[in-house]
């Protein structure tokens, strides 16, 4: 069939007009009035709602206690395999809401590390040695898994052993059986060298903020003919909301951090600690007006290096108490935000943006740690602390930019090498 008739239809219909619906203009005017009234400059306001701090701390404490019992029980049997297999599947990095499970998963994983260390270095009961990481700011990097193995080389001369163990932890493979590891673990304790390795997981507090700010929306380019909002939903959002008050609500989830550290005792009381850490920060961001907005999740992954100095205050029996202070440098390695656009209650496209900024986050921290020797070379530690996160110089909203001073609790297991 020739297409000429279609061209004719195109030409005719392109010019065709018909009567408008009755009272359409009145209806439009009615709707326009409030919008026109809403063109006042948007106010900027920030409300911080600090929540979940105590919840998080309580959850972690409960976990620490239950883990303690769990470990003690497991050590009696000197057979960690069941534990490993049970927990290894959860070893992937948790999403923010999974903080508790994330902690659990990591700690059992870390338990493996001690077993391979039979040959080891010497060491006394280093109660004062702590491997905690200062909760630094989180940064992105979905490469979280790689951080653990990467951390290992830090472990000085004993790295080969620990490397193996850590890798196994991540791959959920059965525990390595090495030269009677379980038996050896019971023979520890006499030598006096000062190297220990620890794996920890920590959480801090989340927060929520609301701000009203048109400026935040100003980044997108404007041009003509953007009627297809599916392609550029952010633009559509800006257009539809022009002249309306815009709200930005940011809810920061609890940051999650995990890592491996090694510490080296300078003398009986003082030790230095460093290692590598991974942190995950996520925030739920809603931006726009009541009708046209997006719901987004920002995910930041950070890789960090902590440097801490620890001072052993006292120790008695299985328990040790120490103080710690240090810095944490964290580099954001991945920053993404996924936005689900809603126009008039109707989903209108999803975008995933990779943020161009990759902030470097510095923080300082002080803390006090309580360490409890479980059995063999393993020690469970809990280290509450306070951290201050410096401005990272970017506009990316994080829990730390909203709340630079953070309380945190590091939980982990420490193995004294060579015991």
């Amino acid at each position, binding site marked *: *069939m*020739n297409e*000429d*008739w*279609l061209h*004719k*239809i*195109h030409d*005719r*219909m*392109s*010019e*065709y*007009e*018909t*009567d*408008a*619906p009755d009272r*359409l*203009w009145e*209806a*439009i005017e009615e*709707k*326009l009035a409030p*919008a*026109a009234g809403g*063109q006042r400059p948007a106010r900027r306001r920030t409300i911080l709602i600090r929540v979940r701090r105590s919840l998080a701390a309580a959850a972690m404490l409960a976990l620490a206690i239950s883990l303690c019992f769990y470990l003690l029980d497991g050590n009696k049997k000197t057979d960690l395999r069941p534990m490993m297999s049970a927990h290894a599947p959860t070893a992937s990095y948790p999403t923010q809401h999974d903080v508790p499970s994330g902690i659990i998963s990591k700690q059992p994983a870390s338990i493996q590390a001690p077993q391979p260390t039979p040959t080891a270095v010497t060491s006394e009961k280093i109660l004062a040695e702590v491997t905690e990481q200062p909760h630094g700011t989180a940064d992105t990097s979905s490469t979280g898994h790689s951080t653990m193995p990467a951390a290992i080389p830090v472990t000085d001369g004993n790295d080969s052993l620990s490397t193996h163990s850590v890798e196994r932890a991540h791959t959920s493979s059965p525990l390595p059986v090495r030269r009677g590891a379980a038996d050896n673990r019971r023979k520890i304790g006499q030598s006096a060298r000062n190297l220990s390795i620890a794996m920890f997981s920590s959480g801090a507090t989340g927060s929520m903020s609301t701000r009203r700010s048109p400026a935040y929306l100003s980044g997108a380019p*404007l*041009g*003509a*003919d*953007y*009627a*297809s*909002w*599916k*392609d550029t939903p952010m*633009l559509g959002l*800006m*257009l*539809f*909301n*022009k*002249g*309306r008050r815009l709200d930005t609500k940011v809810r920061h989830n609890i940051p999650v951090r995990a890592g491996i550290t090694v510490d080296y005792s300078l003398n009986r009381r003082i030790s230095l600690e460093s290692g590598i850490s991974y942190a995950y920060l996520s925030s739920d961001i809603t931006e726009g007006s009541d009708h046209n907005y997006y719901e987004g999740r920002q995910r930041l992954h950070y890789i960090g290096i902590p440097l801490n100095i620890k001072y052993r205050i006292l120790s008695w029996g299985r328990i040790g108490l120490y103080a710690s202070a240090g810095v944490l440098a964290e580099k954001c390695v991945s920053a993404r935000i996924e936005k689900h656009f809603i*126009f*008039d209650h*109707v989903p*209108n496209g999803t975008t995933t943006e990779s943020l161009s900024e990759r902030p470097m986050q510095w923080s300082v921290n002080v803390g006090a740690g309580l360490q409890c020797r479980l059995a063999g070379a393993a020690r469970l530690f809990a280290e509450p602390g306070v951290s201050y996160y410096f401005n990272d110089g970017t506009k990316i909203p994080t829990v730390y930019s909203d709340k630079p001073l953070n309380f945190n609790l590091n939980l982990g297991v420490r193995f004294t090498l060579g015991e």
Partner: protein
Amino acid sequence: MMPDEPDNELRLVSLLRQGDPDAMRQLYTTHIRYLTAVCARYVVNSEDVKDVLQESFLKIMSGIASFGYRGKGSLRGWITKVTVNEALKHLQRDKRIDFVGISVPDHDQADTEPDVDSIPSAELFRMIRELPDGYRTIFNLYVIENKSHREIASLLNIKESTSASQLHRAKLLLASKIRQYHNPLSTNI
């Protein structure tokens, strides 16, 4: 003010950006009959047409600041896009577009190009509106809005092949309607 004159149209856009109520009214009166036809090619129910037009105008008003004037006709082109987009959103809202095929009289189209010239525009308009939703939507987008199948596919989140087959069926059905108009005794449909 004559909106057909580029300078005047540019001035109108400028006034609209300032929120001038008279300019809004003028934009409305100048284009509403045309936009109504655009909208009604996609949306059949008259109440829905009104709703979609209302929403379109609100978006035009709120989005005028982003509109970059590119000469005569660009304003009309832009408001048409906004309106079509709103109409599509309306149609998709409840997944109202059914792309399932219906049987179409399949006969000798080879040389018999339908005679459009002698049919009044209003009648053509009515015939297009009578097409099933899926046919109508794609026919409108392809033939009248000059979208490619690829654009349509991405716009409606369908396959290009679906767009092409729907268009094919739409053309057959419309051609059949046109023939029937010329020859009411035909029993093609």
